[in-house]
């Protein structure tokens, strides 16, 4: 069985203005930060050592920006397909703290027909439960033509 058979890819490119169903991650836990540290191989103690974070002037440990980015990419690729991704861009806006709940949303901002499919551009955001935006981003997906 090949990957294309198993993965969840959309059969037809969504039209301009389509919004994905939102998805919320969290509440975020220190364990999630540690798991990401290991997966990324980034052992910055700011994300798991409270004393270290407090000495640096922060009230507690906080999430890696790239962990939030990875969660947003999970949301985006579950929507438009892991194989179809062609660009993923995020801007870090606000720090994510333990206990935060992060809601991802996305909307199709542009579609462009190509010989091998439709290039679908989306805007992405991740909002904390406070209403503050943790991440803003955009992504492009090349969705193959339906047979």
């Amino acid at each position: 069985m090949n990957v294309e058979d198993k993965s969840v890819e959309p059969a037809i490119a969504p039209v301009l203005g389509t919004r994905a169903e939102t998805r919320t991650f969290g509440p975020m836990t220190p364990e999630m930060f540690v798991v990401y540290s290991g997966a990324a191989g980034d052992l910055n103690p700011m994300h798991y050592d409270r004393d270290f974070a407090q000495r640096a002037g922060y009230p507690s440990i906080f999430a890696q920006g790239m962990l939030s980015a990875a969660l947003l990419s999970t949301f985006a690729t579950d929507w438009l397909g892991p194989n179809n991704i062609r660009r993923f861009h995020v801007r870090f806006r606000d720090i994510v703290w333990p206990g935060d709940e992060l809601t991802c949303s996305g909307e199709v901002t542009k579609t462009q027909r190509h010989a091998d499919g439709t290039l679908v551009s989306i805007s992405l955001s991740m909002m904390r439960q406070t209403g503050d935006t943790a991440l803003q981003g955009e992504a492009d997906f090349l969705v193959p033509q339906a047979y």
Partner: protein
Amino acid sequence: MPDAQSSETIAYELPIERGAIRTFRGAMQSSNPAYEGVEAIIPPTFLITAWRWAPEGGRAAHGIPRSLLLHGEQEFIYHQAPPRAGQVLTAKEHIHDRYEKVGKRGGVMQFVVISTEFSDEEGVLVAEMRSTFIGREPKIGREPKGDAS
């Protein structure tokens, strides 16, 4: 400070490992089957793990003091479907852009964009990663925006 624009970095290998993808998939809380199995593809932000394969001289230095450093933006570009487990990519970093802006408190903020280009076994450029680092204004009056990691 040496001129980073002209400094040459050493290219390095990035073996795409199935186990590494599996671990990353757990951390990103994905259950997507595209990221598992012998033909697993890499998740969109997986290339951020490349640096741990970098030898001495492999990293392009942004030159921003750690106490002022913020990670402002991160971008991943795929010129074709994402690479798969078993591939061995070659990574090469360089300073892509360097500019300054006046911050909200009137100080100078430095921006450095580091690009990493990933080529496959045939030498074809398959992916690029761009990291924007910000050197914030030296005096901190309030909580900084951005990823302070």
